[in-house]
C-alpha cells in the first residue's frame, strides 16, 4: 500500500486510487483531512470540472485536482498551503458571481455546500458589480424534482447520476460557457425510479424534491439513522424528524447495501409512518358489526381469551399463525417461541411481490421477509389451503399482506373462521373484520433488527413516537403469551434480552445483538449454518 503524506501526516492508502478516492476510503475525507469538492462524488465517475479540490503536490508545478490525481508512494500533498487557499477562494468567488444568494428563501440553506464552503473557504465580501444570470426557476423536471437554474453551480453530478446509475440519461447541460444550464429534452422528463437522488447529490439548492420543499427548515430536523421498509433490500436511510413528525428519508451511505442511493418509491414510503390509514386504535368486534374501541391491554386479553377457547375446543392444530414480513427479527423470534409453546405448527408469512430491477428494488415488498424465512415463517401456501378448505378454526394474523391476490385475494376466507385476531400497522379490510384488532409500531417507531434479502441484519431505532397506544409485534405476542400463561413469557417484554436469546437460540443469528449490529449492519451466517 502506498504511503503518502498529507500536510505532514503520513497515511497508508489503497493502490490505484486518486487522492480523493484514497482519502474517502480511509475515512479521512472531510473528517480530519479537508479537501472541499463539488463535482466529485464517491459513486460517480470523475468529472474534474469544479476545480475546488485543487491541492499542492510536491514536484508538480501546477496545483492538481485531488479527484483525478493518482496517488503514488511517497507523494507529498499540501491541502492548506497559501496557494491552495487562494485557489479555493478564487473558485468560491467565481461560483458566487452568478449565484442568486437567495439563501433566505432557499430550501437548501443549512445543508448547502455553497454556503458551507463560502463560509469556510471564501472571501468575506463580494467584488462583483455585474448583473447575475437570469434563468428559469421552478422548473418541473419530472414528477418529483424541481429545478432552479439560477442556483446551479454546474457540478453536473445530476447529469452523471442519470447517465451512470439508472442509465436513463434524462439530464443534459445545454449551452456553453456561462450560458450553460441543466435541462431535460422535450417529452423526456426526469422520471426514472431513482430521480430523487439528484436532489441529494445537488450540493446547492438547484434541485429539490417536490415532496420536501418548503415543508420545514432543515435545521429543525433531527437525523435518525434508519432502514427503508419499502422492500427486502433494506436501504439505509436517514430519517428527518421534527416535532415527532417524519419529513423525509434520505439515503444513508452503506456500500454493501445501497451505496448512496434510494429509489423514489422507497424514499416516499416514509409517508406510511404518519399516514391516515394507520391502525391507530385497538378494537373488538361487538355483537353488531360495529368495532368497539378498547385499550391495547383489553384487546390482548380478549385475544388471549379467544385463542384459549379455540385451542381448548379444537386444539392448537386448529390455529394458523401468519407472521408479518415487516416485523423485526426479535418480534418474529418471540412469535416463534409463542407458537412453539402453544404447539402451533401451521406458521408462515405472506409476502407481497412487486416490481424489481437490477439496482436496488427487490420483488419482496417487505423489509424482513428474509428474517421471517430464517425464523421458520416460510411460504404460507399450505397453511392458506387449510384456511380455504375449512381445516382451521382460527387465525392469528400479523399484517395484511395475505390479502394480496397472490395469496387470498380478500378477507373472506379468514373472516369465515371462528376466531380472527389481526395485529397490524394499517387499518386494512382484514383489521376491519377481525374479532380483535391490535395496532403495532412501524420500524421507525421501535428498536429492533431487520434482515435484508442478502442476510444482512440491520438495526432500526425509534425516530418518532406513534400518537396512539401501540406496542411492537413482539410485545403484543409477549403479552398474549403471558395472558395465556405460556412458559417463557414471564415479566415485562424487553427487546434487548429477546435479542440476546435470539442470538443464542437460533444458530443463523448467533452473534446478533442490538448493540453489536452497528450502523452498517451485520451479516448473518447462511441459512442452516
Amino acid at each position, binding site marked *: 500500500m502506498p504511503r503518502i503524506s498529507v500536510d505532514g501526516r503520513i497515511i497508508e492508502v489503497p493502490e490505484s486510487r486518486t487522492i480523493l478516492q484514497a482519502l474517502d476510503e480511509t475515512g479521512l475525507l472531510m473528517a480530519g483531512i479537508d479537501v472541499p469538492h463539488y463535482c466529485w462524488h464517491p459513486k460517480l465517475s470523475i468529472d*474534474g*470540472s469544479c476545480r475546488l479540490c485543487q491541492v499542492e503536490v510536491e514536484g508538480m508545478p501546477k496545483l492538481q485536482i485531488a479527484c483525478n490525481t493518482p496517488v503514488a508512494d511517497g507523494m507529498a500533498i499540501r491541502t492548506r498551503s497559501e496557494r491552495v487557499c487562494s485557489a479555493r477562494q478564487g473558485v468560491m468567488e467565481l461560483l458566487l458571481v452568478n449565484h442568486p444568494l437567495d439563501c433566505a428563501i432557499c430550501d437548501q440553506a443549512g445543508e448547502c455546500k455553497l454556503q458551507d464552503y463560502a463560509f469556510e473557504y471564501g472571501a468575506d465580501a463580494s467584488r462583483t458589480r455585474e448583473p447575475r444570470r437570469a434563468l428559469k426557476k421552478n422548473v418541473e423536471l419530472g414528477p418529483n424534482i424541481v429545478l432552479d437554474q439560477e442556483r446551479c453551480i454546474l457540478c453536473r453530478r445530476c447529469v452523471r447520476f442519470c447517465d451512470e446509475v439508472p442509465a436513463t440519461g434524462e439530464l443534459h447541460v445545454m449551452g456553453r460557457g456561462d450560458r450553460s444550464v441543466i435541462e431535460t429534452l422535450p417529452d423526456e422528463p426526469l422520471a426514472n425510479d431513482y430521480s430523487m437522488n439528484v436532489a441529494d447529490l445537488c450540493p446547492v439548492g438547484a434541485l429539490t424534491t417536490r415532496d420536501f420543499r418548503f415543508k420545514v427548515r432543515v435545521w429543525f430536523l433531527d437525523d435518525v439513522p434508519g432502514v427503508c421498509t419499502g422492500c427486502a433490500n433494506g436501504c439505509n436511510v436517514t430519517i428527518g424528524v421534527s416535532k415527532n413528525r417524519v419529513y423525509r428519508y434520505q439515503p444513508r451511505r452503506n456500500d454493501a447495501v445501497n451505496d448512496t442511493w434510494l429509489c423514489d418509491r422507497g424514499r416516499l414510503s416514509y409517508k406510511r409512518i404518519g399516514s391516515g390509514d394507520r391502525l391507530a386504535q385497538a378494537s373488538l368486534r361487538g355483537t353488531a358489526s360495529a368495532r368497539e374501541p378498547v385499550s391495547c391491554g383489553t384487546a390482548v386479553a380478549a385475544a388471549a381469551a379467544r385463542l384459549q377457547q379455540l385451542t381448548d375446543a379444537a386444539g392448537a392444530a386448529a390455529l394458523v399463525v401468519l407472521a408479518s414480513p415487516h416485523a423485526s427479527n426479535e418480534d418474529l423470534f418471540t412469535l416463534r417461541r409463542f407458537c412453539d409453546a402453544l404447539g402451533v405448527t401451521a406458521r408462515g408469512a405472506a409476502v407481497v411481490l412487486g416490481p424489481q430491477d437490477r439496482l436496488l428494488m427487490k420483488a419482496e415488498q417487505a423489509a424482513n421477509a428474509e428474517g421471517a424465512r430464517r425464523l421458520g415463517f416460510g411460504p404460507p401456501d399450505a397453511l392458506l389451503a387449510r384456511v380455504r378448505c375449512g381445516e382451521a378454526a382460527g387465525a392469528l394474523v400479523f399484517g395484511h399482506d395475505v390479502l394480496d391476490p397472490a395469496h387470498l385475494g380478500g378477507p373472506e376466507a379468514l373472516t369465515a373462521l371462528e376466531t380472527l385476531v389481526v395485529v397490524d400497522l394499517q387499518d386494512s379490510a382484514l383489521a376491519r373484520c377481525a374479532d380483535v384488532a391490535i395496532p403495532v409500531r412501524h420500524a421507525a417507531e421501535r428498536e429492533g433488527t431487520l434482515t435484508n434479502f442478502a442476510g444482512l441484519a440491520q438495526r432500526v431505532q425509534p425516530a418518532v413516537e406513534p400518537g396512539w397506544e401501540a406496542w411492537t409485534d413482539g410485545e403484543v405476542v409477549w403479552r398474549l403469551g403471558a395472558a395465556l400463561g405460556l412458559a417463557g413469557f414471564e415479566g415485562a417484554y424487553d427487546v434487548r434480552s429477546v435479542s440476546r436469546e435470539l442470538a443464542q437460540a437460533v444458530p443463523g443469528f448467533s452473534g446478533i445483538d442490538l448493540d453489536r449490529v452497528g450502523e452498517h449492519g451485520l451479516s448473518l451466517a447462511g441459512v442452516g449454518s
Partner: protein
Amino acid sequence: MGPQVPLITNYLTQHFLDDAAVGLEGYERLGGYAALRRALENSPADLIELITSAGLQGRGGAGFSTGLKWSFMPADGELPKYLVCNGDESEPGSFKDRILMERGPHQLLEGILIAAWATGAEKTFLYVRGEYERPAEALERAIAEARARGIVGTNVCGSDFAHDIVVIRGAGAYICGEETGLLESLEGKKGQPRKKPPFPAQYGAFGRPTTVNNVETLCHVPHIVNNGADWFRGFGTEKSPGTTLFGVSGQIARPGLFELPLGTPLDELVFEHAGGPAADQRVKGVIPGGLSMPVLPADQLDVPMANEFLRERRTMLGTGGVMVMDERTCMVRASVVIAHFFRDESCGQCTQCREGTGWIHKLVERIERGAGVMEDITVLEDICAKMEGQTICAFADAAAWPIQGMLRHFRGEFEAHVVQRRCGFAESFEL
C-alpha cells in the same frame, strides 16, 4: 487560381501558386509521395528518431515536440490505434491550415501517412473545421485520388501497411481545436476537453491510443523525410527549427500568408513583408500568435518569432496568426472583443473558465462604456490570475493571457476610460 495564396513561399508552399500541382498527378510529377515510400522502408522507431532530431515543434499553438508526442504511442499492443489530424483551425487570426489543406492536400496526406506509419495508426480522422467547406472538398478529392492509386488503403504504396483516412467536419466550435475537445466532438459528443490523465496516447479517439497533430505540423514531415534533419534545422532558430506560415491581418498594408523561417523578427514581418500600417498611421500593438496570445506594444516588436524569444516578452508564437492594430484602435474595445469571443466559446465545464470569461467580459465592457471604477482593473487582473493554469484545458489561460497582455501594456487606456467616464476613441468597430 484562387485569390488566397501565400505572399512569400518556401518549401511548404512553393507550388501553391500552381493549380496543376494541387492534384495527385501534379503532386507526384513534382516528386510527391517519394518521402512516404522512403518512410515505409524505414522502421517507425527510426522515423520517430528522425522527427525528434529534426526538432519539429507542433504548429497548433502549444509548440510541443512532435517526435516526442509520437513516441508516447504504445509501440505494440492491440489495434486499433488512431491518428487524428487537427484541421479545426479555430484560432482567430489564423488561416494557414486552410491554405495548406486547399492548396496542398496531397502534401498533408503524405505527412499523415508517414505519421501513421511511425505511430502504428490504422486510421486517420482528419477533423476539418465546420466552416472550411473548400478545404474539406479538396481533401475529399485528394483522398479519393490517393485511394484510387493505392496510396491510401489496404496496401499503402504496395506495402503491407494498411491505412485509411476519413474526413470529419466539425460544427464550428473553437474548443474543438483543443485536442481532447476535438476527440469528444469526433465521437459525436459535445465538444468538451477531457481531463488528463489519461492522455490521448493512452485513451484517445473512441478510447484507443491516439496521436493528435496539427495540419501544418504534418505538412512539414515529408520534407524532413526527404531532406533530413540537418536540412530542416537549416531553417529557423536552434530551438525552433523550420519555417512556419505567418498569417498577418488587421490594420496592415499587405495582409496575407508568409512562409518564413521561425525566428524571423516580428518587426521585419510587419513592416517589410506585410508592408506596415497605412501611410498616415503608426502601429500600436501586435498580437503575435492568434487571439489567445498576449499583445506586444509597438516598442517591443524587435523580437524573433520563436517561442524561446517571445516567452521573454511574456507572449508566445501560438498559431502564428499576427494581428496588427494601429493607433486608431481602442485597446479596451479590442479587449471587449477578445473577452466576448472567449466568453462565447468557453465550453463551460470548469468553474474558473465558465464564470471567469463571463465576468471579464462584463467588466471590460463596462469599463469601455465609461461605467468602470479603478477597482475594476485590479479585479480584472485578479480574475485573470485565478483562471490561469487551473483548468482542464488551456482555454482559461487563452482567455486570461490576452487580457493580461492588454493590462500589462495598455493599462493607461483602461484608467483613462475610468477617469474620463467614456471611451476617448472614435468607434473604430462595432461591438
